[in-house]
């Protein structure tokens, strides 16, 4: 078995004058759940296509489970399941017909097709509507059917392109739960492309942020947040007699949003300046009862990274 489940080494891919990926470099270890994040056109779908041998890189090296997808595309795709951005289902077929068709496409042994299809439809709560045409399914049902399709051949490697896009919150939560379970069982490797940063933070061990085809950040959520130097939101509680002094000092470090009694809600304090703030308050004779910084979200880090790039 190769060292990495997915390897993208200095890959460049162009479409005419447009450079979709520019020296992209990252890898995904076996069993990891990795989020590939970025705006529309950042290069996420192109990356999935390269890793599955649907496209060839112009420069660089791509390996999927140690195989070269350009030379061994069919073999690579035997081991991968891809949930495409749109469910890619025929409205004129029933869910059951669709699953039987895809089972044949992935070479599920004939004598186990019915069992496998039935089990997946049951698991994704589609058994009752299995004989109905897909055209009558809700978005959530379509997405569940598409997800069931990716598992027909029990692939060790999953690519999920916007798995919860266009779903209502309840359906999105159900799909997230399924993704979490799929990743946990059999130690599957999962690459998720998403715009939903809360989802990425919730599901992923690591994230790779792409911007205009280049890697902007790569690491665990905590590492990316640290690297982004996101200003903190924090709650500060001081002695009731020293509110005015504390407010004067605090406002030089960030935005004081709300003051209620001795409690301050603040924004925009950088992690590096937090000890300075505390020291300044102590020096100013303020009694501090509580300093509670909120952990910055991946979303805040993402926006900060993108913002810096835009400004730069």
């Amino acid at each position: 078995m190769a060292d990495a489940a997915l390897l993208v080494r200095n890959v460049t891919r162009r479409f005419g004058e447009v450079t979709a990926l520019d020296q992209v470099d990252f890898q995904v270890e076996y069993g990891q759940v990795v989020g590939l994040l970025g705006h529309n056109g950042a290069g996420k779908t192109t990356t999935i296509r390269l890793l599955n041998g649907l496209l060839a890189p112009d420069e660089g090296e791509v390996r999927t489970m140690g195989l070269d997808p350009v030379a061994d595309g069919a073999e690579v795709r035997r081991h991968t399941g891809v949930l495409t951005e749109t469910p890619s289902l025929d409205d004129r077929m029933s869910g059951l017909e669709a699953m039987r068709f895809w089972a044949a496409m992935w070479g599920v042994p004939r004598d186990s097709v019915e069992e496998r299809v039935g089990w997946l439809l049951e698991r994704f709560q589609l058994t009752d509507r299995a004989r109905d045409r897909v055209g009558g399914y809700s978005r959530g049902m379509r997405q569940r059917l598409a997800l069931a399709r990716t598992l027909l051949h029990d692939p060790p490697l999953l690519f999920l392109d916007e798995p919860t896009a266009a779903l209502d919150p309840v359906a999105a939560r159900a799909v997230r739960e399924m993704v979490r379970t799929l990743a946990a069982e059999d130690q599957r490797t999962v690459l998720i492309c998403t715009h939903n940063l809360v989802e990425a933070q919730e599901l992923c061990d690591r994230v790779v942020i792409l911007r205009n085809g280049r890697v902007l950040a790569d690491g665990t959520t905590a590492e990316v947040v640290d690297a982004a130097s996101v200003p903190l939101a924090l709650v500060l509680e001081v002695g009731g007699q020293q509110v005015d002094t504390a407010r004067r000092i605090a406002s030089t470090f960030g935005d004081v949003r709300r003051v209620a009694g001795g409690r301050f809600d603040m924004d925009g304090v950088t992690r590096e300046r937090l000890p300075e703030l505390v020291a300044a308050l102590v020096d100013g004779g303020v009694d501090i009862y509580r300093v509670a910084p909120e952990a910055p979200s991946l979303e805040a880090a993402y926006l900060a990274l993108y913002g810096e790039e835009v400004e730069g």
Partner: protein
Amino acid sequence: MNWRSIFAIVRRDLTLVARAKAVMVPLVIVPVVLFVGLPLLVSFALDAAGSDLDDLLPLIDALPESVRISLGDGPLLQRAQLYLLEHQFATFFLIVPLMVCAVIAADSFAGEKERKTLEALLYTPTTDRELYLAKLFGPWLASIAVSFASYGVYLVVCNLALAGSVGRVVAVTPLWATVVLWLSPGVAALGLSVLVVVSARVRGFQEAYQVGGVLVLPVVALVAAQFAGFLFVDSALAVFLGLLTWAIALGVMAVGFGIFRRERLLEQV
């Protein structure tokens, strides 16, 4: 070659076609109009022509001797009817496989792109060649099936229309056998080999279907040339045209095998 995948795609494509009104309507209406309505209309029009029928005499007289013999020595009306139904309609028949190919091939690739179902297919372990072959096979089988069915219906209609007046079975001739079993499958193969490449490069069903419509023009030219007396398609010429058609079709398919790539399909997904 993974034949299970190929046949799975063929079966699915044909199932989808059977369930699409926009695709099925032309597949039913065109053969019915051409091989039920038109022969009946021609027979009755000739019947009602009266003395105007004499205008056809020079055309009948100009036919090759073997054809004139096959028309018998009955009245002019009967010979004219036999000529049109046994000879002119044989070339006309080639419109059916082309039309079927145009409709199904357009739905097969371009329609699949339009419905955004192609991408999932590209992520399966099928090779480019297997995909290409599957996309050729489905419409070809359908065109053969529709052609045979059209011929069957045509036989019934012709023989009912001329029942009792001719004294033999109509439209069961070496020419028709050659057209139905040899030339028509060849024409379907040629049309398809072009259409699959075209369908892979356009964005939607309508666009591919319109391009497919252009393929009917050579057949229309052939029919017109025969009507005008410029050429006469007998079974020998039909065998030759079949050979030519199959040779070109196989050549275009070989080129298609070489250039058909997932990557090109993805450019427009």
